């Protein structure tokens, strides 16, 4: 399993052709208390850069962009009752959706942890 990061502060953990997507700890810190997560329907076809998901916080409503193309297979149902999981555990139990990658070559355009840390240090 390999984890990649985007400049829009999403992470994706890839296991074979399946990827799990969430937002980074840095992103949740910027958003503040999260009150609602609008998740996509399973079966939704996504292109890299589409915004299938909206995270509402006390400060703003923010789109979550899909870091790669693919088809949504599963969403994190726990967030319906406990959206604050995105605050407390953003890079693990606060994941947002899973998808089947349609073009794994897109991963090459994403960052690894070290590159992402360097990226946010410069923000």
């Amino acid at each position: 399993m390999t984890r990649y990061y985007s400049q829009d502060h999403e992470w994706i953990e890839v296991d074979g052709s399946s990827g799990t997507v969430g937002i980074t700890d840095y992103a949740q810190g910027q958003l503040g208390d999260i009150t609602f997560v609008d998740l996509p329907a399973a079966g939704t076809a996504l292109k890299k850069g589409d915004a299938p998901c909206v995270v509402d916080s006390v400060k703003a409503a923010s789109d979550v962009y899909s870091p790669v193309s693919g088809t949504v297979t599963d969403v994190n149902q726990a967030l319906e009752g406990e959206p604050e999981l995105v605050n407390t555990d953003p890079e693990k139990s606060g994941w947002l959706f899973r998808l089947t990658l349609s073009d794994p070559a897109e991963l090459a355009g994403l960052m690894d942890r070290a590159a992402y840390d360097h990226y946010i240090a410069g923000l």
Partner: protein
Amino acid sequence: MRYLPLTAADRSEMLGVIGAASVDELFADVPASARLSGPIAGLPLHASEMAVERHMGALAGKNVSAGSVPFFLGAGAYRHHIPASVDHLIQRGEFLTAYTPYQPEIAQGTLQVLFEFQSQVARLFGTDIANASMYDGSTACWEAVAMAGRITKRGKAVLCRGLHPHYVSTITTMAKFTGDMIDYRAPKLDAAPDTAGVIAAIDAETSCVVVQYPDILGRIPDLAAIATAAHAHGALLIAVVTEPVALGLLEAPGHLGADIVVGEGQSIGVGLNFGGPYLGLFGCAEKFVRQMPGRLCGQTVDAAGKRGFVLTLSTREQHIRREKATSNICTNSGLCALAFSVHMTLLGGDGLHQLARLNHARARSAADRLSRIPGIRVLNDAYFNEFTVMLPSDAREVVRQLADRQVLGGVSLGRLYPDAPGLANGLLVTATETTTAEDIEALAVALEGVLS
């Protein structure tokens, strides 16, 4: 103090920046024939306040106003009695400037009014929730269609034939920009609405079915049957109420399966006002709240545990969500909503029920009297306070002749449907609690005179 902040130098500097030689050049795209070349002929440059008052009074005197003669107009705007206490209360200093709150939580009184208003609308419509109001019934109706598109991710709206043509027009105008397909045909002159036709038009692409209740001809559609059919296809039912007083007698649309209920609130507390400002009502099932347009006031507790009010779920709204907001409405009809709420509070549940019974009784008296006139037939087999009569000739001409006899006799279908000559003999007649037995007799006698 006059507010004229720009100097001639400011103006020429700005014109210089955008490369225009004169202010007139900015209007170059307006055809010369549509531009004024000088002062308006016959309009003096100056007049005293007294002279203007006298002149405007004379102009207004040419109108036949609703309160001055027997009056039977409806079709989406209704004349009802507004108790003097409504105007008194809404003009109190605490309320008069009430507008959509920009620093909301500071104005707890304004928020509480909105909260009470929402509670009343939700109870009236039989919906879980309602928003703090929209501009008017027709724009609320379009917003509901757009909302159904977001929820179902489909793009075809089926409008019942009995939907007010002005509402249809608002929807088709907006759909030009969103690309929604609109399935609509003008009504047929049957005693009951075309339920089977609406149901047959629903398919797997349909986002919503929009049904007016009572419909434009005053008939009462079978909402429950249409709701069942819509839901079987994964579509939503939007019920449209242009005369909310009817809900004092008719079952609330939300209880009959409507997913979204919208309407025009003018009937309760807001006068005819020459067509505006009016009051859009909007309620829906709670599960759709995130897709609902408009402002929403919620009740909560403060840090000390005391009841307080907030504007809630604002992340749906344009000032936060920008172009992805549920709607570009970022406001509400504050003063009209207040008038609605005050009048509704004065009426109470029993009062609304009694008012509705009175409206229906007056309409029955009118229908009975008119149907005794040779050549006239009442179309509806059911109605609330408004029904359609079929005349032996073009109703537009009859309405004009009635007006000459100082009776405002109704709304001709020819006026509502200028492109449907088959409907021309139809006349919509409305009676409310303001209609007296003498008014009804005056209409009947005038009609007999015009038709003889």
